[in-house]
């Protein structure tokens, strides 16, 4: 079930990226000048943060599979902390954009910037909640009730946030 959900999410983002690219080709000057207003350094930092949190989630799964539940909960805690760092960095970026009046309605680039990054941020926040729930269950030594909602599926959701960001980063910030 989670794979169908992930595939649908990637499909939705993928279609948005295609529309973004077509509009970019039509108004290249506007898109390039708008992209120059973005903070690529913060986006790079957030990419490294998210990729590292993904690695911690992988280690949590490895620990859990080998029966080291305490380590699994700790790795999840580290991943959640990095998720928090991602949110803080994104908030700093948003504050800067709002201060400069670069909100929705300025042009098509910023419409997509807000739509894509805010929708992704919503997924990250949801992912933090999911990982927190997983870590809590593991720390308490409770078994996962449903086969469709366990550490593997929760981790897959977090990796999906990672996947979307590694697509979003080059398309929105770099090219």
């Amino acid at each position, binding site marked *: 079930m989670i*794979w169908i959900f992930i*595939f649908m999410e*990637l*499909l939705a983002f*993928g279609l948005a*990226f*295609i529309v973004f*690219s*077509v509009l*970019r*080709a039509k108004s290249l000057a506007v898109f390039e000048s708008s992209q120059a207003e973005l903070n*690529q350094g913060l986006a*790079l930092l957030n*990419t*490294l943060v998210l*990729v*590292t949190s*993904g*690695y911690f*989630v*992988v*280690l949590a799964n*490895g*620990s859990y599979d*080998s029966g*080291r539940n305490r380590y699994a909960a700790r790795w999840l805690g580290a991943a959640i902390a990095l998720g928090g760092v991602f949110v803080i960095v994104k908030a700093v970026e948003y504050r800067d954009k709002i201060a400069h009046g670069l909100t929705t309605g300025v042009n098509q680039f910023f419409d997509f910037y807000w739509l894509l990054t805010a929708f992704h941020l919503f997924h990250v926040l949801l992912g933090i909640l999911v990982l927190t729930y997983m870590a809590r269950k593991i720390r308490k030594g409770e078994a996962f009730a449903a086969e469709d909602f366990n550490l*593997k599926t929760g*981790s*897959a959701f977090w*990796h999906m946030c*990672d*996947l979307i960001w*590694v*697509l979003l*980063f*080059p*398309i929105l910030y*770099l*090219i």
Partner: protein
Amino acid sequence: MKSFIIKEGAVWLALVVLTVVGFYNSGASGSYVAYLVLAIGLVKFFLIFFDFMEMKHAHWVWQIAMTLFMLVLFGTISLSL
């Protein structure tokens, strides 16, 4: 567990290096740059998808479907550059 940490750590390191390489190349001039940055993004996607998400153990239909989808997506974006 130690070999697992090292193996997955190598994937993580590859992701970090590719991220930094893509970032610094994006500032370079040349028509190839955008394609290079996109290609790096695609490689990172597959590293996370097949290794971190363990999709290398998934049914081949999922693997083929996602690979085709990503190739179509990146192909379409490349055409618009």
